[in-house]
């Protein structure tokens, strides 16, 4: 029944769109749900703004746009001003606390994940910070099954990066 609107904002190169694809793939192909994922990004491939939207629902998703995000994931300070107004009252705000500093308490619950520093220190690769955030998100919300997400990572991530991405996701599950 429920329709969950997820908005992910960050900068190019952080895997914003991949995060959206993973959530959508897990929901749609492995969790028996319906999902729509859309995206937009500025023209520069690295460092420009990036946004992914995912809607997960038990039924076919009619309106494909995120209107008020149930879950807002902010991975860069730059994204705060742009997307914070899009969060639904009472929604969940997930931030990469290493990069997002300017969030004030408001009508939302904050899940603060030091994803970039964990990725940097433990994985030696900040690129997988997004997977740590997804792990933490799933642990916190139970939005999708862990097995579904792991399968989604298997099919969506290039062969040689699979192990690292799975490891980061699993590390995220240990948080919170």
């Amino acid at each position, binding site marked *: 029944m429920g329709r969950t609107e997820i908005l992910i904002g960050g900068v190019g190169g952080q895997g914003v769109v991949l995060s959206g*694809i993973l959530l959508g*793939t897990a929901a749609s*192909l*492995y969790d028996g749900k319906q999902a729509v994922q859309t995206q937009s990004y500025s023209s520069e491939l690295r460092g420009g703004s990036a946004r992914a939207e995912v809607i997960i629902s038990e039924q076919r998703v009619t309106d494909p746009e995120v209107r008020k995000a149930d879950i807002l994931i902010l991975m860069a300070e730059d994204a705060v001003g742009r997307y914070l107004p899009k969060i639904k009252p009472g929604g969940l705000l997930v931030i990469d606390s290493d990069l997002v500093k300017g969030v004030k308490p408001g009508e939302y619950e904050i899940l603060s994940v030091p994803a970039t520093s964990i990725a940097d220190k433990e994985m030696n690769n900040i690129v997988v910070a997004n997977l740590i955030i997804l792990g933490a998100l799933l642990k916190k919300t139970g939005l999708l099954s862990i097995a579904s997400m792991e399968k989604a990572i298997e*099919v*969506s991530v290039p062969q040689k990066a699979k192990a690292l991405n799975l490891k980061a996701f699993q590390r995220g599950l240990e948080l919170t």
Partner: protein
Amino acid sequence: MSELVHPYHRFIRPTVTHSSFCPGCGDGTIAQSILRAIDGLDMDMDDFVFVSGIGCAAWIPSPLFNADVLHTTHGRPIAFAFGIKMGLTEKKVMVVSGDGDLVAIGGNHLIQNARRNIEMVVICSNNGIYGMTGGQAAPTTPMGVKTTTTPYGTFENVFEDISGLVIAAGASFVARWTTGHPRQLTASIKKAIQKKGFAFIEVISQCPVQFGRKMGVGNAVQMLEDYKNRSISIQEAKKLSKEELKGRIVVGELVDLDKPEMVEEVTRMRKKAMGGAEAAVDTGRS
């Protein structure tokens, strides 16, 4: 007593009663040179697809030649020919058009396909003027000449060496002749047809109506005489300085070399692709 029959009339589309060229136009001589080359190679019109653009020279194959002919938009015949050749690799594809069409508006297609070295024959009738629209200046019109769009004389530098451009771009066969050299032209067209690669032939051709008369060069005969006087073979030209070559028309087969040809390269690429490609990108397949 049996009457003589023109050997190339059998190549003319039966519905065509006469050529559409002005009296004395060199395009007709080019047309016959092409047909003589095809006949000389014992080939048939069905071995060819002809493509032309817009302008007087485009009317050489369209509708004159009794073959598959695509008469395309201005400047684009080589681009259309690209698709035809890729679709019918076993056929000979020949583009016939003018300097305005192939070099001015369509210059980049000429350059890029010479670079690709895709097998096709491109014959460029270079008359130095826009004939069909009434004698406007072309990039090939000599500087200072009065035309309908340059009533005070052309003030742009002339495009002197189209063939040189095509050579620089990478074509594997390039020749230049004038309509005063129909035999040599035919011999080069024969070679061009047999060439595995991009074969370009520039033909300096008289437009007595829009060029000759208006520029004071004279009629068709005077223009041919002028070509005869100014032509110099590439072999002779090599012995002369740039200064000495001023105003001369360097004729001959300028380039004839073997290098990778695109249709063959595409076939090679396909084999590679069929031999077990990696999984598709981003299908998210389960």
